[in-house]
């Protein structure tokens, strides 16, 4: 455990040239959480950030996109107002205002992180970090003394040859959330969470969407039944086309837009003309320009190689967490790693270890999608004998009452012990509902404990219990 260097602090006092127990590079959901937890545990901490505090998540990812998606969701609700006995005429939207609100929310998020830093006595070192041999840390050329360095620089959109974004016609998520106007048509390349969320968002605003996915289904990491249900739902939207099993061969920039050439598995080519194209084909770690390799930090396939218990890199005293160490590229995974890494570093016990088998994944389109653990196929391929339970929102009183009956929940249980192997949600409050079974899976609760838990009525959460019950033939409402 790195002790606080009182002597060094006494001499230098302020942040410049100060000696830190821990310097975190990056202030996203990995970095800022690591900084705060370390400060809580008595470390003297600094956090290097060259852009806005809060990282991509707070500024260009999770939070601002959820702000935009909320606008879309409300717009759709207003369009259905009559169904609820409401009169809403001339329902329309102001795209610029939507964007403005999203940006404001992002700024608040960044301010929130700044306040938390202040509260916890964390120095925010504004600038760009660089490592030089043997293991020196420079921030904008000024040396910072750090007993431990934690790299939490995150990731960015991956670029493929021929699909390079230009920030104008061919964009990434970053430009997609601040477009100057609603595009008339958009080709979304990649049907992962980011692609699906933007496709949904612009579809609500009237954009003609072509969603292209190389793999055979949308949200390929989700359970097949969920992918199918989502595809059915999205296809029902007007002007929404899904091309799964299609590879993008190239994007040609034209005067009025782009022409995206796609080819099906059997080689059938097709050209799709659109105003813009969004490239959302995954992310890659931000490992460049940091001097990582110069000091000997091992990089593997675009990500820093670490031991996923201690988060040690190949260099003593340098740690890494979050997107920069690889999949799953999720904010909450980065935060969880941040806490586990720092707690171990500080000798705190018991360390809140990351259970990589129980990291939930969420997609915030409507219907929402969320899941944790194994898909049915993964469980069977792992040789598990499973029991599967399902429960449709249609059978939920609460869902009917609020008029949100699309979707279902599917649980995958170990047939013998009732272990919660996986839970898959589509519809309703999927992204919140997943928490219960994430807890169950993490704590190794079994079907018995879930069934023995009284769920409030009427709530969406009841469907969780019902689905578990269904797996055991004990569901009540179906």
């Amino acid at each position: 455990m790195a002790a606080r260097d009182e002597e060094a602090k006494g001499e230098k006092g302020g942040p410049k040239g100060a000696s830190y127990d821990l310097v975190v590079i990056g202030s996203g959901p990995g970095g800022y959480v690591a900084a705060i937890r370390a400060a809580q545990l008595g470390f003297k901490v600094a956090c290097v950030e060259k852009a806005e505090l809060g990282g991509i998540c707070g500024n260009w990812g999770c939070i601002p996109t959820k702000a935009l998606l909320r606008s879309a969701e409300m717009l759709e609700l207003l369009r259905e107002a009559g169904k609820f006995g409401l009169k809403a005429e001339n329902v329309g939207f102001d795209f610029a205002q939507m964007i403005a609100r999203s940006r404001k929310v992002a700024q608040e998020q960044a301010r929130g992180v700044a306040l938390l830093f202040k509260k916890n006595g964390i120095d925010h070192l504004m600038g760009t970090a660089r490592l030089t041999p043997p293991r020196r840390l420079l921030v904008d050329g000024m040396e910072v003394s750090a007993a431990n360095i934690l790299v939490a620089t995150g990731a960015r959109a991956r670029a493929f040859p021929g699909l390079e974004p230009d920030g104008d016609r061919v964009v990434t998520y970053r430009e997609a959330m601040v477009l100057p106007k609603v595009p008339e048509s958009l080709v979304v390349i990649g049907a992962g969470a980011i692609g699906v969320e933007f496709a949904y968002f612009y579809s609500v605003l009237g954009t003609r969407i072509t969603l292209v996915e190389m793999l055979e289904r949308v949200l390929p990491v989700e359970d097949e039944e969920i992918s199918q249900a989502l595809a059915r739902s999205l296809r029902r939207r007007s002007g929404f086309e899904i091309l799964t099993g299609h590879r993008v061969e190239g994007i040609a920039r034209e005067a009025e837009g782009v022409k995206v050439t796609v080819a099906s598995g059997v080689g059938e080519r097709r050209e799709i003309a659109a105003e813009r194209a969004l490239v959302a084909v995954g992310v890659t770690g931000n490992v460049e320009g940091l001097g990582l390799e110069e000091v000997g930090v091992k990089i593997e396939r675009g990500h820093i190689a670490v031991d996923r218990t201690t988060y040690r890199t190949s260099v003593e005293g340098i740690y890494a967490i979050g997107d920069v160490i690889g999949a799953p590229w999720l904010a909450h995974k980065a935060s969880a790693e941040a806490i586990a890494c720092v707690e171990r570093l500080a000798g705190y016990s018991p360390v809140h270890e990351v259970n990589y088998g129980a990291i939930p994944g969420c997609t915030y389109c409507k219907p929402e999608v969320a899941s944790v653990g194994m898909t049915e196929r993964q469980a069977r391929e792992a040789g598990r004998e499973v029991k599967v339970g399902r429960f449709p929102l249609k059978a939920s009183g609460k869902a009917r009452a609020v008029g949100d009956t699309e979707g279902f929940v599917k649980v995958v249980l170990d047939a013998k012990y009732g272990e919660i192997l996986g839970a898959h949600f589509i519809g309703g409050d999927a992204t919140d509902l997943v928490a219960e079974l994430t807890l169950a899976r993490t704590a190794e609760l079994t079907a018995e404990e879930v069934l023995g838990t009284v769920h409030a009525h009427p709530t969406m959460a009841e469907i969780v219990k019902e689905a578990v019950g269904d797996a055991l033939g004990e569901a009540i409402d179906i």
Partner: protein
Amino acid sequence: MATVVTMPKLSPTMEEGVLLRWLKKEGEAIRPGDVIAEVETDKANMEFPIEEEGMVLRLLVKESETVKVGAPVAVVGEKGENVEAALQGAGASHGPSVGAEASQPQVPPPEDDRPTLRIRAEIVEQGLREAAARAEKAAAEAETARAEEAEPPGPEKIFGTREPGAREGAPLSVVPQEEGDGEEDETRVVPGRLRASPLARKIAAEHGLSLRQVAGSGPAGRVVQRDVLAALQAREKRAAATAQAPAAQAKAAQAKAPAARGPVLAPEAEVVPLSQMRKTVARRLTEAKQTVPHFYLTMDARGDALWAFYEQLRSLHGHGDQGGKITLNDLVVKATAIALTRVPAANASFSEAGLVRHRRVDIGVAVALEEGLITPVVRDADTKSVGTIAREIRELAARAREKKLRPEEYTGATFSVSNLGMYGVREFAAIINPPESGILAVGAIERRPVVLERGGEDRLAVQRVMTLTLSCDHRVIDGALGARLLGAIVQVIEHPLAMVL
């Protein structure tokens, strides 16, 4: 490092178990994987394997005693270790002796919160000192006690199935107690709350592993799935090593070898791990077929009268006060019970001490389950109405499928009936469920050509016929007696109105 061994949860639904028989005596050496006792659970009689190495220092419960899961049953460790200290350390309120109050174990199961234990550290320390003093005094007596208990435990109870009423009665044998006779030592069982995930508990219970003996790797030492899996793998390895060692008893080695062949939790594709029920079925039936001298008698019963009776009863369905559906099997059970009252000599069990003549007629009815079979018992079937028998069998079978039978509901039958008629089986021979003296195997009731004599002339006719095969324990039932019993059963079946008398 004396360790308190607690009653394991040997089946998922087990809350308490009857310690049927101790297989290790106080002072006897034990190795990990040794079976120290036979325990009757809610599902079956099971082996209670031990994880410890050393010797049995003290047995805390008597045979036939009912013990809650998690309650201490024995103390094991090295020779000379302090039993009292271990008991106090484990928070056991068990006195030093197997007294009258021991039949109601007061120790809560390990999953219970016992926060007071931490505060009681001082008391425990005092206990350790006192125990050490007591132990020295008792050392000499212990030596004597050990010498006295060289005789084998209990009377013959291979299958552990109790005679009706045995549970309430006197224990079959009382295990002598013994004081620890050595210096004090720290105990291995950590007092306080046992932290374990529900999943870890279930897997451990399924495999008869005590969680107290598993080191937890979860937060604050919580035992989680991976710890239990690791412990089981270690146990498998030890068991395999034991099986390879020169076997003292060829029979024991034979029984153990299949289990030791592959790791329970990483089976090869073609190996389906044995469920506890499957293991029990395998063991009991093997022993039954090997140790009980079976012989078989077969008769055809004319079934038209039974069929007509059955149809009539069914037409009453919903009108009678019992309200339930009656099956042919219910009628055969009733017929068997009546026949046993007519041939009481057959309603008996063999024991070394002598033939046990049963006063009650309790019929076990074989029920097929997904993972094996179980024979719930219809008590006093001779005195119950057909409707009552039908309802009881229905309820017992339903609960058997849910594994919710209590031990007393599937043990202690005097005779059994197994029916495969509904599967179209014409006749078969069943294996006796000791200590019962016989089992009736019932085939399908079907139309067959029969030869009738009318007016001194033979002629063919078509009638319903049911073939019955009686398996008899020759030690109890000789051929003529068996024939009388089977004849009596056939008699009732052919004249079913006897069932309403």
